[in-house]
């Protein structure tokens, strides 16, 4: 499949996998959009807080920092509503493709509010010249993914941009879901004493995608863990309607999710490094590139905070599902050091765990 090149000196395919190469701010603030603004890390958050929200004004007064917005319906009941745009490169990678990501990503954002996903819209921005065969493959994948997740693809849109401006294909999906009564899942529910669980081994998506990266290519049987999490969440809610917090791990890895939750909820998190499941292939890939598995992207994992009295049942329920088979207890929510995540090493020492700045650079050092 041919990659479209721009006319300029920047080579998008080599440079621009936003999932992992997003650019941090340079030493002085830019007046332009930089790749890091799309990275999902600190720069992205700043763009929202310092540009979008002020510009939207009071229209955005009810916008939330959570993955999905939960809205009360006039007649009673609540819906969750979310959107996401997928610009991932390559379009097809071991264990998944942009179509699956587009469906599962939005399904998962809904599931993280405890919502039962109902329907998705699909909007495409296509570059003139994209092979229809590629588009068909992506769309077919989306259909299958929607069936797997039990959600309908009910409406959509297609736009075409001139050759050289679209980098092939971008997909946006927006989704709605129904939030059951009695479910109140948001960062603010995090309570000191809560048990922290992760739904399985981390770092698989990032390493699988990185293995194809120009300049790095390495061989691995590792596949992306792209998966829908709504069935897993339903199983958890069946034993504990009062799950406190859910967050799916994506860019920036487990560290980013925990740091964001700690920050938003003003609580501390402490976890045992040795408890976090990391597949050997992820450790190996991280090892020779000099990356931290805690910072590597995932696409089919979640982290949850639950009341300690229900942690055992929740863990068992998670492990009874295919997507949660590798679930583990990794730590606790604490009152100390609010906003900061601390890892206890296997040697008994502690260290602060931070988000990656935006990029994961292979290093020689």
């Amino acid at each position: 499949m041919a990659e479209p090149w721009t006319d300029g000196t920047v080579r998008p395919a080599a440079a621009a996998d936003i999932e992992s190469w997003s650019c941090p701010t340079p030493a002085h603030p830019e007046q332009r959009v930089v790749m890091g603004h799309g990275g999902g890390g600190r720069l992205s958050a700043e763009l929202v807080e310092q540009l979008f929200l002020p510009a939207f004004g009071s229209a955005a007064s009810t916008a939330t920092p959570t993955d999905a917005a939960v809205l009360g319906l006039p007649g009673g009941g609540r819906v969750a509503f979310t959107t996401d745009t997928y610009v991932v490169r390559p379009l097809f990678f071991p264990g998944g493709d942009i179509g699956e990501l587009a469906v599962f990503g939005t399904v998962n954002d809904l599931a993280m509010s405890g919502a039962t996903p109902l329907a998705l819209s699909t909007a495409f921005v296509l570059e003139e010249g994209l092979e229809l065969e590629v588009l068909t493959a992506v769309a077919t994948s989306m259909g299958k993914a929607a069936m797997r997740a039990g959600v309908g693809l009910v409406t959509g849109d297609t736009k075409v941009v001139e050759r050289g401006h679209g980098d092939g294909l971008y997909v946006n999906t927006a989704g709605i879901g129904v939030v059951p009564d009695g479910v109140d899942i948001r960062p603010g529910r995090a309570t000191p004493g809560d048990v922290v669980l992760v739904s399985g081994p981390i770092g698989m998506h990032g390493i699988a995608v990185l293995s194809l990266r120009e300049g790095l290519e390495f061989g691995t049987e590792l596949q992306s863990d792209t998966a829908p999490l709504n069935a897993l969440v339903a199983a958890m809610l069946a034993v504990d309607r009062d799950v406190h917090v859910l967050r799916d791990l994506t860019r920036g890895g487990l560290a980013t999710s925990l740091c964001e939750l700690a920050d938003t909820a003003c609580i501390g998190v402490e976890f045992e490094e040795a408890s976090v499941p990391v597949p050997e292939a992820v450790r190996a890939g991280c090892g020779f590139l000099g990356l931290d598995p805690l910072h590597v992207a995932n696409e089919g994992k979640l982290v949850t905070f639950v009341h300690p009295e229900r942690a055992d049942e929740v863990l068992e329920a998670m492990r009874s599902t295919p997507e949660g088979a590798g679930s583990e207890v990794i730590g606790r929510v604490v009152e100390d050091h609010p906003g900061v995540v601390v890892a206890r090493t296997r040697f008994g020492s502690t260290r602060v765990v931070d988000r990656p700045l935006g990029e994961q650079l292979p290093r020689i050092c």
Partner: protein
Amino acid sequence: MKYLDEFQDPVLAGRLFAEIDAAVTRPWALMEVCGGQTHSIMRNGIDQLLPDTVELIHGPGCPVCVTPLEMIERALEIASRPDVVFCSFGDMLRVPGRDRDLFGVKASGGDVRIVYSPLDAVAVAEAEPDRQVVFFGVGFETTAPANAMAVVQARDRGLANFSMLVSHVLVPPAIEAILSSPTSRVNGFLAAGHVCSVMGTGQYEPLADRYHVPIVVTGFEPLDVLDGIRRCILQLEEGRGEVENAYARAVQVGGNPVAKAVLAEVFEVCDRSWRGIGLIPGSGWRLTPAFADFDAERRFDVGDLTAEEPTECRAGEVLQGMIKPDQCEWFGTTCTPRTPMGATMVSSEGACAAYHQYRRVDTPVSVRRG
């Protein structure tokens, strides 16, 4: 992973900590030279678990950190040219120049590419004969063989569009500079294991003799670092000052003769300025006249580009072990990984970045050993 995991075993670590505890009778300050060792220490909290009388001073073993400002400026200048594909190791992209970094050049349209190996840059030169392909050849002696081979391959394949911006730095002169500094508090050194895999251990004998300091060649995994510390402490307690090899599985006394032969052909010693420290005579490598055609500094005529270090940044004092990162007034406020003032805050091997990343909060260490 074999021969890696075993050297992270917490029970064996416990034994090494106990040995160190038992051996120490008075305060000692040790310097680990290599940034990779600093990373291992900080990430695993080794310094937290050592007796209070053992102080670890983080040395200048981070080639990213010590690449002189003027070399960064030369890189930025070359990378900004429209006919250039600028290839670099990932670590270099965020190192701040005067007012921008390579990421910024990329954002403005420069063709800057991250590579894992310098041979990848040679491949680019071959694939794109109508572009100038420049590789940023930084690193200590460990990386020099890779960089040397890239230049040799370029020559052998007649790749006239390939050149290298060389900024190699050498460890022994840096150790000597620290030892000869009147403000140095270092009693013993953990020498950089992989540097010695290439160069051997012989260069450290004259230093150990002249200054009567232990120099222990040390690896990178937690057990390796602990063993290096243990042997260094034993030497100090016994009044010895010798070169010792604590990384025997990867280091021989003579180093790697094949690599040394190629290095001698491709590089020659020169003076080098270390960011935050200043000029250390004979502490760098540049391309030999035989390979002058591949010298990017000449090809792009940037050899005269100089830059003044900003005076506020105290990276130099950190690198010499004179202050700890959190003793700098800019640490964590003006100077953070997001807005670094000097290179020690940029690379995760830099002492300041490592401190910021791992040590911003004092948490109680309730369990002493694994």
